[in-house]
């Protein structure tokens, strides 16, 4: 209860942008969780002719197959946000753990890990993911794993760089001299202290996953149909934009709004943790 009240107080004190951001995230999460209850139709149900205009029955009209656009957007929240979240979490767990590990261990471990990451980063990531997706197939799981692993290289660099600042702190020496295991040091001593830059990066990376998926679906390697995902929806309807038809702007806006919302919250979080006070 205390925590709830604390959170509520924090929320009240948050700047307007952060409130907007939180509101956006809450709405998205709500929509994602309760998609089947909110959506008026089935995810892939064909409800009418294609490209019907906005109406009371079809709030945002219908898509190229005559599926309800609003329904697709709602389900898209679930799929896109879900996949992006899992992928980003994977990227951060992998990159974070190895990055901190390298910083703590130093020496050969760090050298080898950094070299591996350098090599992975030197290969154009779109090509690399294309290769891997073709080898392992384009199931959602391999999509998540591949994007997650390739993205983790960037997280690794960040985690390592920020951890290097923490590793020199006396309390790390204290833990080492106590004889603590590396894993304990990583999780209990370092991780909580590099969360700020990691979270900031999370905000951006999270949104980049949408884009990666949508780029991949541009090359025919995205999420399996008929699953609704925003990146794929933009792709499917993108050429309409040349004919002054703004249908693709709907899923694009869904992504953009979430990006902005997440980053508003991230900015707020950073401001709180870094102690950097903007001039009021």
């Amino acid at each position: 209860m205390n925590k709830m009240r604390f959170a509520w107080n924090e929320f009240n004190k948050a700047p307007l942008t952060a409130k907007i951001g939180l509101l956006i995230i809450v709405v998205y999460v709500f929509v994602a969780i309760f998609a089947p209850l909110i959506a008026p139709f089935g995810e892939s149900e064909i409800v009418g002719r294609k490209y019907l205009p906005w109406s009371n029955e079809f709030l945002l009209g219908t898509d190229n197959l005559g599926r309800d656009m609003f329904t697709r957007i709602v389900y898209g929240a679930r799929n896109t946000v879900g996949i992006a979240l899992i992928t980003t979490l994977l990227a951060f767990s992998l990159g974070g753990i190895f990055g901190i590990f390298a910083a703590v261990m130093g020496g050969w471990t760090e050298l080898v890990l950094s070299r591996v990451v350098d090599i992975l980063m030197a290969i154009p990531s779109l090509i690399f993911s294309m290769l891997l997706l073709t080898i392992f197939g384009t199931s959602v799981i391999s999509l998540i794993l591949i994007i997650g692993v390739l993205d983790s290289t960037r997280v690794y660099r960040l985690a390592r760089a920020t951890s290097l600042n923490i590793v020199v702190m006396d309390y790390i020496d204290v833990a080492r001299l106590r004889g603590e295991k590396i894993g304990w040091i990583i999780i209990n001593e370092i991780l909580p202290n590099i969360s700020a830059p990691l979270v900031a990066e999370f905000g951006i990376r999270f949104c980049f996953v949408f884009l990666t998926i949508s780029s991949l679906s541009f090359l025919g390697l995205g999420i399996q149909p008929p699953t609704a995902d925003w990146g794929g929806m933009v792709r499917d309807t993108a050429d309409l934009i040349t004919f002054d038809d703004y249908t693709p702007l709907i899923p694009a806006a869904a992504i953009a709004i979430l990006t902005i919302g997440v980053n508003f919250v991230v900015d707020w979080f950073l401001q709180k943790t870094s102690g950097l006070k903007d001039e009021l």
Partner: protein
Amino acid sequence: MKPTDKLLSRLNNAEVSRRDFLKKASALGIAGALPGALLSTNAVAAKPKRGGHLRIALAGGSTGDSLDPTRLTSPHINFLYYTTHAQLTEVLPNGELSPYLAESYEYGKDASEWIFKLRKGAEFHNGKTITADDVIASLDRHRGEDSASQMKSFMQEIISLKKDGDSTVIIKLQNPNVDFPTILSAPTLGILPSTNGKVEDFTVGSGAYMLEKFEPGQRSLVKRNPNFFFPDRGYVDSAEILTIADSTARQNALVTGAVDVIGDVPAATADLLARNAKIKVLDVTGMMHDTFPMLTNQAPLDNNHVRMALKLSIDREEVLEKILSGHGMVGNDHPISPVNRFFNTELEQRVYDPEKAKWHLKQAGLSKLKIKLSVSDSVYAGAVDTAVLYSEQAKKSGIEITPNRVPADGYWKDVWLKHPWCVSNWSGRPTEDWMFTQAYAATSNWNETLWKNDRFNELLVAARAELEDSKRRDMYYEMQRLVRDDGGSVVHLFANHITAYNENVGVPSKVAGNWEFDGFKMVERWWLNS
């Protein structure tokens, strides 16, 4: 009034929609002739003009393209070969075969021996006279053991290639084939210059245009051949063929005037494009068709009732409307197009009938069916959407189709002919025999349904040797029925070739439908008005 004329007049009086018109026209078996007819109102008066530079953008083409005719597959190269290289025969806009580089051709004692007489004085672009040796060397390359040519299986039917003087070639076949001259109209069988029986230069042909520049995956530049053997053909001075893979980019290029003609216009946006007053959209019913081949030797697809249930569970009209926006016509589960000579006009059109589908399932001892359908948009644009639509439609028959999108990469090797049910697409063949032989004959490597029907295979061989048209027609009619009612493919759509061009481009009154771009011969046949 002929039925066609009646329909046309109703169309002009706006009594029928264009789509209805096409539908009815296709039922009448005249769609192949339609595009020309449709255009006649604005094109008939126009007289071809000489001069100008024609810029064409197409979707196909890759940075790995090669000019070696035994190594090529891309539409860009096919287009280029029809523009710069002359084949012995050509398919005319009305679908008939006509001699081209050959002055004439005839069969010998039966259809297993063919005599081709070359056009007198025809020259390659480099001034060399075309001889029988060049023809033999050019065809020979495709039939050797080490050949990797697409045409290999046809060319290996040849048991001897002989010349009779400098301008006559005698070809002997293993088995009689009435349609053999049509095969020789294939783009890659363009005749190339040779020395000592070896072809040396792929860039030199004898077509209406000469190759100036070739950048794989990007563009080809050609200029008019002043010594072309049909002096009246070839209107524009020069032309440029561009590969623009992205459909939006192609349309933008046309709208902004960067190119004059584009092909592969997405059906979904063709009508939007046509709203632009300066742009004309040309719909040509061709032989290109989309199929869902099932491997007929795998359970449960080995049961014809299951196949019938699947064939009855697709609402072709809805697919035509939603995927092609009406730019095409529904298929009747066989690959023969109304453009073809022996299109069976007596076959009833198969329609969406979930109840009947259920009945078939029951006959197969099933109450419902769960099946995976492997698709890729690389086969044709809209394939994935079609599968999604199909799966929704099939729910009514108690069939659960799971669309399985697979990578474009390696599709033809790992999915096609491997997965029990997938998507496929055929650009069509100018003859019934060619089409059936490649895709449905038991012996074919590309028998995409692994279908083995004894009666069908007997008829196929017999029809090849049959010299009398009415008998051949009956045979092909029966074969179409067999494929339709027993075969393993859902042939649901014939897609139009949708071409768009700006108003400055002159179009002949009749446009071929065997390939897009007027059978890939538009550089030779079309012109610019100013």
